Each structure stands twice: as structure tokens, then as C-alpha cells.
């Protein structure tokens, strides 16, 4: 699989290099207008790439043109009014945008989806309005003229070669981000935010980081732009510029590294290549833009990449067959952390007047398998949401080996060793099974910022080895390369369990691991859980409705009704408890 991948990516890289070289050399002979177009295309590509980072994390921003503009103005002002050396001014432009984004980002990214869209869109309008109105500094709508060129880049020809270097650096840098841990983590956040959080990825921090990095690059490009054109005015950094930057990723496909490259080239080059007259360019470009989005909502590349797959034969994933062993071989992993004791004291929670947890108290000993049962609406899922930090308790404590977990964020709780699975959003659908498991593995091994953002994730051989070990133990080898979303439901749930286990949990909370499974799949799942139990190396909590499975698996069972514990005991005790029989077992 690895060889397959690297061959493919090498081929892609080689082809891209050849195409680029031809394009680069031929443009340098094509006359000043074409060179100008090529330089602007480079600007567009780099802006698109930097904007895509936050898109990966699932947030679309309209603020990019504002940072582009701030960078341009900082460069213009510091070279003209302040007389700063041009390359220092370029750095100042980037730094100013990083600082601005670091101030605006954390509060702005508390909002999500359409709210963030409007906040970011408001940011462009506000920045535009400041550029217009702060006449003493920005010179209003007439803008600033006479901006010097960057030292050493005096004319169009040298600017062209400089922009080619810039493009090469940007491609390498953004490809590195994509190939590092961070690229996959951002995609995880964008696809299934809850699950990403449950694997220890902090959404707020990562989104702000993506926003700040994108803003810094946009500021740098603003500086380049100002020095290249020699003139800045508010009209160059309007909302519509942001719209086009956003459109690069959408047209090309934000999920693919080359998406914004293709999108930017499409938008900037098509009118020139087809020699559309000035009058019809806006009409044709917007019409084709709308048609592309309509036909391929996930971008051109999402369609192109699907084509070869049709001709490839996919092995039918055959899982959940009878395992060779008889369900007693312990299912263990190398380098496990010790199981922890989970203690819950007086836990309270309510949704308005509905009391979903009333003074809940229980404990699970290290290595114990504890069942949580109760009728629908008893508060089982609320309990799991409280344990994993997705809901904040209104009272009470949650302790793991004596350490408080309540009031920690979901990601911090994962780092302490309590990991949960979900009943319905089980896997990252648009990733391969291997990538799913790898994200799970990272939950137990936090990395430095440098490693997260720069080191290619395939270089972390221990992580890869551990992911492969998990895949082997769970018999997922046949499907490791397939996208998790294409798997049958029961297999998805198995992958979801494997993602949780990959994070080396000390306490593992399984939310209905067998819901919706077929009989054979349930048998397979029960067998796997039996084998995990046999090692006594993870404390396991299970919410489940399949009573035979629960009774067979659990050491003890907690029964909930209307947010209260009505009975705790061994399966035999629970089965003979008259209250439980009346309310739930029937």
C-alpha cells in the first residue's frame, strides 16, 4: 500500500514538475502581458492555498481579502511614510496580519458555520470602511502611490522569476503541512468535528492556528502585491476579492491539495486563454463558476479523482466472519497504559427542567467492564457526554485515578486517558481506515507544534507501526486502504471501536457499540469485546440495549431511569431485581 502511494505521488510530482517547467519557460518568452497574468496567477494560487487551511477545518472565511489588504497597506505605509527597507516591510506586513488574526481569531472562531461566514464577511467590510475613512493615514479611496519595488527585484522580468520561486516555496510549504499530522487533523475537524474532538484534537486551537497561518501568508502576498503594482487602494481588497479566493478552493475541491491551485488557475487564466472580450468576461466566468459548483459541489478534483476508481476492482470487504480462535485469546497491544479507576460522585445535569442526571455516583475498578442500561431517555448518553466533557456537569465530580476530569475540555479528557466512541458518527467517512486508526493513535501521543505541522506523518514510524498493529488485531487488513465511508455499517462500528482503542485508553466508553448490527456482526463484536476484557488492560463502560450481550460481557451493571441510578449489581442481581424488570427488562 505504501509503495502504491509513494509511486503515485512521485508520478504526480514528476508530471507536475515537467508541466510547470514548460509553462514557466514558455511564459518568459510570451511578452509582458502574459508575464503579468502569470504573476497574478501565482498570487491567486498562494492566496488560495493559504485560505484552504481553514476550509479543511470546516470553516469558510471571507476575511482573506482583508488580510491581503492589511498586508498591502502595511507594506505601502512602512516603505513610503516610514522609509523602512522593503524586505523588512514585507516581514512587517506578514507579522501585522499574524498579530491581527491572533487577536480577531479566538473570539471570531467561537462562532461556526453561517455565523462565522457573516463575522468574517463583516471583518472585510469593517477593514474596507477603515481604509476608506481613516484618510490621514490611508489617504482614503485615492489610496497610496509610489510604493517602491522590493530591493533586488527591479522590473517585470525579475518579478516573474521571483514569483516562480515564491510559488515553489509555497507549494512545498503547504504540501508539507498537508502531509504532516496537522493536515489530517484539520481534515478530521472539518469532516466530523465531534469525533475529532473525541480523539483529542482541540477545535478552537487548531482553527485559530489555521486562521493565523493563512492570514500571515495573505499579508505576505499583500506586501508582494503592493510592491509589484506600486499602488494600493481600498477597491483592490473588497468582499469580492474574498469571494474569489473562496471560490478557488470550492471550484478545485478543498479536500485536495491541488484544489485551490486548479481553481485559481481556472479563474485567472480562462478569460485570457480563451481571449474573452472584456465585456463578456464577468458573464462567462461567473456562469462557468456557477455551473462547476452545481455539477461538482465538492470541486473539480473530487470528480476527476473518482474516475480511475471506477475501473479498479475493489475487494469486497469480508469481515465479521467466524474468527479462528474461540473467543478466549486475549486481544492485547504493545505499550498499553495501565487501566484506571473511574469514580463518579454526585453528578448532576439538567436540560431546563428535565433532570438528565440526578446525583449519579458509581465507580469502575481498573480493568472492569461496567454496563450502563436503562430505557430510552434514562440519561445514558447524557452520562457519556458528561464523562467525555461534551456536556458540563452542574454539580459533582468525575475522577480518573483520583484526578478530576470535570471542567476539562473533551480534548484534554482524551489526553488524560478517557476515550469514548459514538453511537452514530462512528468514523471519519472521507478517510481511509488506516488514516482513521492513525488519528486514533495520535490521541495517546501528543506531539510538539513543530512535529504536528512540519514532520511528514509517514516518518513517525512508531505511530504507523502501532496503527498497523491495531489493524491487524482487529482483522481490518483487507479494508485498511478503503475509505471508511464505503464500508458496511457493522464494519464501520468495528473501525470506530478500533479508533478508540488505538488511543490507548485507560477508560473506554462505548456508546451502543452493537446498535443496528446484524446477528453475525453482533457475535463478532461480542467476541472482540470478550477478548479485550480477557486482558483486563482497559476499564470499559458500555451503553447497550442488547441484553444477552450486556449480561454476558459485563462484570457489573448500572441501571438508570430518569437520570437516577435505580440499581447497581452483577448481571444476575440486575436480572432478578424487580424494579429493573418492571421498568426496563419487562
Amino acid at each position, binding site marked *: 500500500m505504501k509503495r502504491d502511494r509513494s509511486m503515485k505521488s512521485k508520478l504526480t510530482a514528476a508530471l507536475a514538475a515537467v508541466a510547470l517547467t514548460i509553462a514557466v519557460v514558455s511564459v518568459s518568452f510570451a511578452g509582458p502581458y502574459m508575464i503579468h497574468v502569470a504573476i497574478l496567477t501565482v498570487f491567486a494560487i498562494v492566496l488560495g492555498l493559504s485560505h484552504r487551511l481553514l476550509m479543511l477545518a470546516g470553516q*469558510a472565511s471571507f476575511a482573506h481579502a482583508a488580510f491581503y489588504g492589511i498586508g498591502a497597506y502595511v507594506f505601502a505605509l512602512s516603505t513610503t511614510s516610514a522609509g523602512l527597507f522593503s524586505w523588512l516591510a514585507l516581514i512587517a506586513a506578514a507579522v501585522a496580519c499574524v498579530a491581527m488574526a491572533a487577536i480577531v481569531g479566538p*473570539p*471570531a472562531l*467561537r*462562532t*461556526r*458555520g*453561517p*455565523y462565522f*461566514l*457573516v*463575522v468574517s*464577511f*463583516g*471583518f472585510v*467590510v*469593517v477593514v*474596507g*470602511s*477603515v481604509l*476608506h*475613512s481613516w484618510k490621514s493615514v490611508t489617504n482614503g479611496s485615492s489610496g497610496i502611490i509610489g510604493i517602491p519595488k522590493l530591493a533586488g527585484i527591479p522590473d517585470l522580468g525579475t518579478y516573474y522569476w521571483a514569483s516562480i520561486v515564491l510559488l515553489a516555496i509555497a507549494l512545498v510549504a503547504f504540501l508539507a503541512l498537508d502531509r504532516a499530522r496537522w493536515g489530517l487533523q484539520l481534515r478530521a475537524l472539518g469532516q466530523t468535528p465531534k469525533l475529532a474532538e473525541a480523539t483529542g484534537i482541540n477545535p478552537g486551537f487548531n482553527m485559530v492556528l489555521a486562521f493565523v497561518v493563512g492570514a500571515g501568508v495573505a499579508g505576505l502576498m499583500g506586501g508582494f502585491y503592493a510592491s509589484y503594482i506600486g499602488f494600493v487602494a481600498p477597491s483592490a481588497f473588497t468582499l*469580492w476579492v474574498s*469571494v474569489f479566493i*473562496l*471560490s478557488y478552493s*470550492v471550484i478545485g475541491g478543498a479536500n485536495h491539495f491541488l484544489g485551490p491551485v486548479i481553481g485559481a488557475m481556472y479563474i485567472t487564466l480562462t478569460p485570457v486563454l480563451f481571449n474573452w472580450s472584456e*465585456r*463578456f468576461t*464577468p*458573464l462567462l466566468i*461567473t*456562469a462557468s*463558476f*456557477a455551473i462547476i*459548483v*452545481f455539477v461538482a*459541489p*465538492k470541486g473539480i478534483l473530487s470528480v476527476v479523482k473518482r474516475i480511475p476508481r471506477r475501473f479498479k476492482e475493489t475487494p469486497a470487504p469480508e469481515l465479521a466472519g467466524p474468527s479462528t480462535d474461540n473467543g478466549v485469546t486475549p486481544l492485547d497491544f504493545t505499550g498499553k497504559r495501565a487501566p484506571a479507576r473511574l469514580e463518579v460522585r454526585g453528578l448532576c445535569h439538567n436540560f431546563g427542567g428535565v433532570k438528565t442526571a440526578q446525583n449519579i455516583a458509581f465507580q469502575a475498578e481498573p480493568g472492569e467492564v461496567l454496563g450502563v442500561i436503562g430505557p430510552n431517555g434514562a440519561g445514558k448518553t447524557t452520562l457519556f457526554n458528561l464523562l467525555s466533557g461534551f456536556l458540563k456537569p452542574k454539580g459533582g465530580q468525575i475522577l480518573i485515578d483520583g484526578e478530576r476530569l470535570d471542567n476539562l475540555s473533551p480534548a484534554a479528557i482524551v489526553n488524560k486517558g478517557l476515550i469514548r466512541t459514538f453511537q452514530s458518527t462512528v468514523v471519519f467517512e472521507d478517510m481511509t481506515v488506516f488514516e482513521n486508526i492513525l488519528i486514533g493513535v495520535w490521541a495517546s501521543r501528543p506531539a510538539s507544534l513543530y512535529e504536528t505541522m512540519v514532520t511528514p506523518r509517514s516518518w513517525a514510524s512508531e505511530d504507523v507501526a502501532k496503527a498497523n498493529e491495531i489493524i491487524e488485531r482487529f482483522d481490518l487488513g483487507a479494508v485498511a486502504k478503503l475509505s471508511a465511508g464505503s464500508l458496511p455499517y457493522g464494519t464501520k462500528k468495528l473501525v470506530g471501536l478500533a479508533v478508540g482503542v488505538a488511543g490507548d485508553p485507560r477508560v473506554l466508553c462505548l456508546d451502543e457499540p452493537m446498535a443496528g448490527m446484524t446477528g453475525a456482526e453482533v457475535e463478532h463484536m461480542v467476541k472482540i469485546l470478550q477478548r479485550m476484557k480477557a486482558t483486563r488492560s482497559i476499564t470499559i463502560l458500555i451503553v447497550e440495549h442488547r441484553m444477552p450481550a450486556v449480561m454476558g460481557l459485563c462484570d457489573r451493571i448500572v441501571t438508570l431511569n430518569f437520570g437516577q441510578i435505580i440499581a447497581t449489581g452483577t448481571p444476575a442481581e440486575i436480572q432478578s431485581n424487580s424494579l429493573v424488570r418492571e421498568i426496563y427488562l419487562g
Partner: protein
Amino acid sequence: MFIVQVVFNGITAGATIALMSIGLTLIFSILGIVNFVHGIMFALGALVAHFATQSVGLDYLSAVVAAALLVGLFGLLLERFGFRRFENLVLEGAVFAIALALFLEAAMWAILGGSPRSVETPFSGVFRLGDLIINKHRLFVVVVAFTLIGALSFFIRYSRYGRAIRAVQQDPYAARLQGIEPHTISMLVFAAGAALAGIAGALIVPMQLALPDMGTAPLLLAFVAIILGGVGSVGGALAAAMVLGMLQSVITTFWSPQITLGIVFAATILILLVLPEGLFGRKS
């Protein structure tokens, strides 16, 4: 008296924003579409009013009705052949709407050119009450807008289709199980939202020349209104629209109309930083 004047202008501005934002918020709550085409519908309403009075020879009131019908039909067709595909693809739907809006605006410039078009109102002149001067047409705009908003609220609250709309807002799947066809409802909502935007354009055009980009500012303000009002809430959108209209009137009177958008958005950002779900939004 001067204050009353400012307040009245604010109510007029707010009524226009409300007509836009109520349609926007309903469309978003049903289909998950951030409808950037709404500004174009506003401009189309104004243009229909212009051509209906100048070329066809209808009177102004019939022209307003024509704007509602034609733009409403346009909205219905857009839902059926465009936006339906983007159900719950919030980002892709928004981008498609932007692309469509840019295309339609470019098309209007190409076909109509930049020459501004005007419409005469039968309600010219003013009422004088002492020092207070009330423009008759503004009064007409306010009366029509509030009548429509009242009727729509009544419709949504009490009619069979209104209940169906609220059902689909909450849970399209469950609504379908009750025999409601969500796509019929979303076409209806798109048509109604478009018709309201068209009427808003037709109502405004006697006070402002019709140009293809005339809908941009009302669109942006309407977005702010639905965000502040809490997405999906008609009452919230109305309340926020009135606040914005008042703000706009005050800034225009005492400062300059150019910076209205900047100040409104700055205020919105500050509010959202404190209340990420808007002024009247519920925590999800």
C-alpha cells in the same frame, strides 16, 4: 420633532430590511442555503416595477403585484432547478448562491447597461404635521411592509401550510413521515421569500434609482439581521431589522451614509463575540 423624523426614517429602512431578512431566514431554516441571490431578487423587483410601469403601462400598485409574482416565480424555479441540490451543504450552497448572484448581476449589466431607471409613485408629496414632514411614499412602504409581515406571521402560525413549514424547519424527516413533502415546502418558502424581496425592491425604487447592484447593501444588512435575530426566527429577524434600520437612520443623519455598513458590521461582530448564537438565538 427632528427625532421623530429620524425614527420614522429608521422604521422605513427597518421595514425594507425586514422584508429581505424574513425571506432569507426562512430559506436558510428550511434548506440550509445562505441565499446570496436575494439581493438580485431585490433589484429584479425594482426592474420589474420599472418595466411594468414604463413599457407595459401598468399603474404602480399593479406593478408591485407583478414584481411579487414574477420574482416569486423566479425564486420557485431557482429552488426547483438549482438550490434543491445543495440541501444541507451549507458552504457549497452559499458558494453556488454567490456564483449565481454574480452571474445574474453581470447579466443585468450586460443586458441593461448602467443607465439608472426610475419609477413614479402615486403617493408623491408629503404630509405636514406641524414641523413634522412625512413622505407619503415612505408611509406607504411602512404600511405595506408591516401588513405583509403580519400576514406572513399569521400564515406561518395558524395555516396548514404554515404548520408544515414549521414542521420541516424542525425535522424534515419526521415531517415527511407525517405526509408533508419537504420539497414542496421549500419551493413554497423560496417563492415567498423571493416575492417579499421583489416587493421590497418595487417599494424602494421610487426613492432610489434602479441599478443591478442596488440589492447588495440591503442584502448585507439583511444577513446581519438574521444573524443577530437568530437563524430561523421570523420575530428575531424583524426585531433585529428594526434595530438596524434605526441604526442606519441615525448614522446617515448624523454622520455619513458611506460608513453605515462598516459601523453596523463592527457592532455585529462585537455582539457575536459576546453572544455567538445572536441576540435572540438559542444555544444549540
